[in-house]
Structures are given as structure tokens and as C-alpha cells.
């Protein structure tokens, strides 16, 4: 950033008109920026806020045959609160997504570490390689896992062919485990990148200092590298947890009845059950719970990092 705001000017009060002019210019720069930004900003805000507002409004309506009863009522929320199925699905979704976030970060950390510290040339190629699958069809990647984990899928038929097993391993497909594996594979890029960025930012001279002061590789990692990369780890967990709670393609294709998640029931309300107000209420409940969990997590993470760093 070449320009600096009003440093120096403030030391010479007799030229206050200049500082005022600068402040005005700065303001107008901000203004010009917003002018250029406004088309995108307005489109994004409108296309997010208006639908959400409508969804909130609709969650207080009730389905009446093919029509909506638009009088305000809390029926949907009351029904949702009383439903044991919903509770099970919500808790399961949180557990699956949480497990997936931890699992993905655990397996991705060494990889990010490797690229940040041990790849000297062609870093760009490694980063592209690690993120490339993320850009390919999500549906096809889930489908690939269906092919691999299926009852007669690649793993089961392969093991049977080699003679290691007699009967297919049933736990592979249509289980929460399958959902966690598939989601971890699908969202790996969201773990790799933030961790990599935070590792890459670490000042290498700190590591040298630790080494000079007699820390071995493991102590150095635990005392310098790991604490300094925590922001990336924390961000990665959040970036995976939040969107995966609402995933419904993966549970629908590989989850079976034990792997069903909250989003599947929302989808049913907008599809077969044709109860949009109920679906809206469920979507809002899900969003509120995810937000609360995310906020608690961020608060806890801040507490923890304050103590370490």
C-alpha cells in the first residue's frame, strides 16, 4: 500500500485544511470503491437477504392442502421441538460433520506441512494438485465412493476375489462411516488451503531461533509450528463443519437410513411431503443451531489460543 493516511500531517496543525482535504479524498476514495462494488454487493445482498426473509416468514405459516395458511403460527416449530426423529437427525448431523471436520484436518495437516516446509520448487503445482479434485463434480465424487464402498462395490468384490473375505463387509456402504469418508474426501481442499497458508506465513527465523536454543524437531514443532498454525486449523475445521452439516447428497447416496442427516428431511419437506412451511422452519432451526455451535467453537478456540500463544 503506497499511500499512507494522515501521518505527518497531524504533526502540522497549521495545515489542517490539507488534512481535511486528505480525509475528504480518502472518504471519496472509499465512496468510489463502493460505487464500483455496488452492483455486485447489491445483487448478492438482495439474492441472499430477500429469500431468507421470505423463508423466515414462511416458517410461521402452515401448509393447508395445496395452499398456505398465512396466519402467524408457531405450529411448525412446536412440532419440530416435539419430534424425536428430528432430534436424532440433528445430533447425528452435528456428530458426523464434527467427526468429518476433525478427521479431515488430521489427515490434511501433514500434507499441508509437507508442501509448506519440504517442497522447495513447484509449490504451485502441488497446491493445484491438492485442490484439483475439489473443482470436479461433487455428485460424481460421491458416486465414485458409492462404486468403491458398495455392497458389491470395488472393495468388497476385490477382497472377495482375492479371497480375504467370504461375505461382503456391510458396514462399508450405507453407514455414517461411509458419509464421513466421502465428506472428508470431498472437502479436503477446505482443510489443506487454510492450514497451508498459516504454515507458510510462519517466520522461518523463529524455527532457527528455536533450533539454536536447543529445541529438537519435535519440541520445535510443538512449541513453535503447531501454535502458530492454529489459526489455519481452526478456520479449516469451521470451513468444513458449517457446510457439511447441511449436506444431503452424500447421506442420500452413501448414508443409508443410519446415515441420514437433517438436510435429507428438509429436502423431503420440499419434495415428497410438500410441506414448505415445515421445511423452512427446519432449515431455520438447522441454521440457528449451526451458527450457535460455530460461535461457541470460535469463542472456545479464541480462549484456547490466547492461552497457548
Amino acid at each position, binding site marked *: 500500500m503506497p499511500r499512507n493516511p494522515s501521518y505527518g500531517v497531524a504533526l502540522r496543525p497549521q495545515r489542517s485544511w490539507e488534512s481535511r482535504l486528505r480525509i475528504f479524498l480518502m472518504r471519496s476514495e472509499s465512496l468510489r470503491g463502493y460505487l*464500483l462494488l455496488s452492483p455486485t454487493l447489491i445483487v*448478492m445482498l438482495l439474492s441472499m437477504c430477500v429469500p431468507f426473509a421470505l423463508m423466515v416468514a414462511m416458517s410461521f405459516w402452515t401448509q393447508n392442502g395445496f395452499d398456505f395458511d398465512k396466519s402467524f403460527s408457531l405450529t411448525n416449530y412446536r412440532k419440530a421441538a416435539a419430534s424425536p426423529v428430528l432430534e436424532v437427525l440433528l445430533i447425528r448431523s452435528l456428530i458426523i460433520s464434527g467427526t468429518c471436520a476433525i478427521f479431515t484436518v488430521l489427515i490434511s495437516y501433514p500434507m499441508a506441512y509437507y508442501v509448506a516446509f519440504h517442497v522447495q520448487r513447484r509449490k*504451485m503445482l502441488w*497446491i493445484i494438485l491438492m485442490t484439483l479434485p475439489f473443482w470436479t463434480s461433487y455428485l*460424481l465424487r460421491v458416486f465414485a465412493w458409492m462404486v468403491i464402498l458398495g455392497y458389491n462395490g470395488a472393495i468388497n468384490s476385490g477382497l472377495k476375489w482375492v479371497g480375504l473375505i467370504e461375505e461382503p463387509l456391510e458396514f462399508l456402504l450405507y453407514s455414517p462411516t461411509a458419509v464421513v469418508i466421502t465428506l472428508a474426501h470431498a472437502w479436503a481442499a477446505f482443510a489443506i488451503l487454510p492450514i497451508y497458508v498459516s504454515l507458510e506465513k510462519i517466520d522461518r527465523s523463529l524455527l532457527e531461533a528455536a533450533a539454536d536454543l536447543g529445541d529438537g524437531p519435535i519440541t520445535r514443532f510443538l512449541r513453535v509450528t503447531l501454535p502458530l498454525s492454529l489459526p489455519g486449523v481452526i478456520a479449516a475445521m469451521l470451513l468444513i463443519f458449517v457446510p457439511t452439516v447441511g449436506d444431503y447428497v452424500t447421506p442420500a447416496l452413501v448414508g443409508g437410513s443410519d446415515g441420514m442427516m437433517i438436510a435429507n428431511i428438509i429436502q423431503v419437506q420440499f419434495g415428497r411431503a410438500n410441506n414448505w412451511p415445515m421445511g423452512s422452519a427446519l*432449515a431455520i432451526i*438447522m441454521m440457528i443451531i449451526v451458527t450457535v455451535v460455530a460461535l461457541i467453537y470460535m469463542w472456545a478456540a479464541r480462549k484456547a489460543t490466547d492461552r497457548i500463544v
Partner: protein
Amino acid sequence: MKNVAYINRPNRPLHLYALVYLAFLYVPVLFLPLFSFNDSIYVTFPFKGFTTTWYEQMLDNKPMHAALMNSIRVASVAALVATMFGIFAAKAVTRYRIRGKKPVVGAIMLPLVIPGIILGVALLILVSRLGIPLSLYTITLGHILISIPFSMATLIARFEGFDKSMEEAAADLGDNAWWTFWRVTLPMAFPGVLASLLLCFTISFDEFIMAFFLAGTESTLPIFIYTQLRFPQKLPGVLALGACILAVSFVVVFFAQWLRRRGIAGSSNVGV
């Protein structure tokens, strides 16, 4: 670099781990092309024999062709519109110092972390309340919304390494803002713009959740694939089609990423 070498000496187990990790990322995806040449409607080992039947069947699959054309149309429009909005936004954030930049950029990036189903049903409610019939247009609308953050992130990375003096020179030499944009900014940002177009195209082309909620009678390719998954005998056909889509996606995205990161590899701004 030299003096830290003693800290980062080659670590064989870690190197091995990196290779295993890459295998975890890529091998599952490779099963689709692998089994697409298998001469059996069951996706199982051992292989029955080599065949190209499933690819030949694709050639005269009319509903698939229609879905493919729909996808291409939706993705082209979504990519163009999203990139246009992306250029405005990325230029604004990198060219001007804006107050409250972080929350504003955060707001635009929000669709990245909102579960697709929430955006999908919210938009579905909106278009139905407005009385707009579901069609390819509504899908395009949804895809524009989710593509803009990617476009903006791509272009910000490109614009950040920008030498502003070039634009200032053009302005000093008498170009107005419009001509400066066309003659200096756009040509310099061209690799970024192209990368954004390609990435947004891929995102829209592969997107399923929003399309699933916002589709009318005409379906896009991912919806077509999803409906085929219900019929076991159609599975090999889906494998062949999936293999083709993956092959094209990998080439396009690799090219786009290469364009995007060329020259900015050293910067810490990696984005998604």
C-alpha cells in the same frame, strides 16, 4: 532458503505420506473411468473384459444430449454474468481503499459456506412467491449467485499483483476511465478473467444441489446423472459419462488454475 535447509532436511515418511494422501484424493475418482471399460453391468472385480459399449451408447442417448446442451447453456451464461460481477467487485476492493472492506468482502463470500440446500430452498421460495416458473433461467440465477464468490476470489488474486502505474500512465496520457479499463486493465487482467470464466463454468456445469431445487421440466447434466443412479442397469452408462466429464473438468480446471496462479505463486494469498 539455504540457511533453513538444516531445519527442513528431507523427511522420507512425510514424503511417503504426501503420496498416500494424493492417492486418497485421486484413486477413488479413477474408479469411474476404470469400470467404464468393464464389460458388465455390475461394478465389481474381477473385470469381465474390455468394452467401449458404454461409450458407444452415449452417442445416441437423446435425453443425455439435451441435458448436456442445457448444462452448457446455463454454465456459459452463469460464467459470463458471474465474472462480470466479479470484475467489478475485485477491481473495487483492490483498487480503492474501502472502509469496512472485510465485512463487505465477507458478505459477498458468504455463499461459499452456506449449505447448498439452504440457498437452494430459499431461492426456490423466492421464485415461487414471485410467480416465476421454474426453468433453466432459475437454475442460471442460482449458479450466478454461487459463482460470484469464486470469480471474485480468483480476480482479487490477479488484481493484487497489479502495477497501478500502468493505469495511471494511461490516465495521464489522456485515456478516460472507460478506455483505461478496456486498453490497460482488461488486457493485463486477461489471464485472471479467463481463469474466472473457466472456473465458474465448471462450477455451474457440475453443480447439483441448487439445480435440483430450481429445475423445471428441463434438466441439467448432474440432475440427469442423479436420476440415472436409481436404475442399476444404467450404472455403466453413468460411469462412462462421468469419466468423460471428469476428464474434461480436470483439463479445464488445471488450465484455469495454472493461469490464475502464474506469477502469483509466491504470494500468500492462495484463496480456494
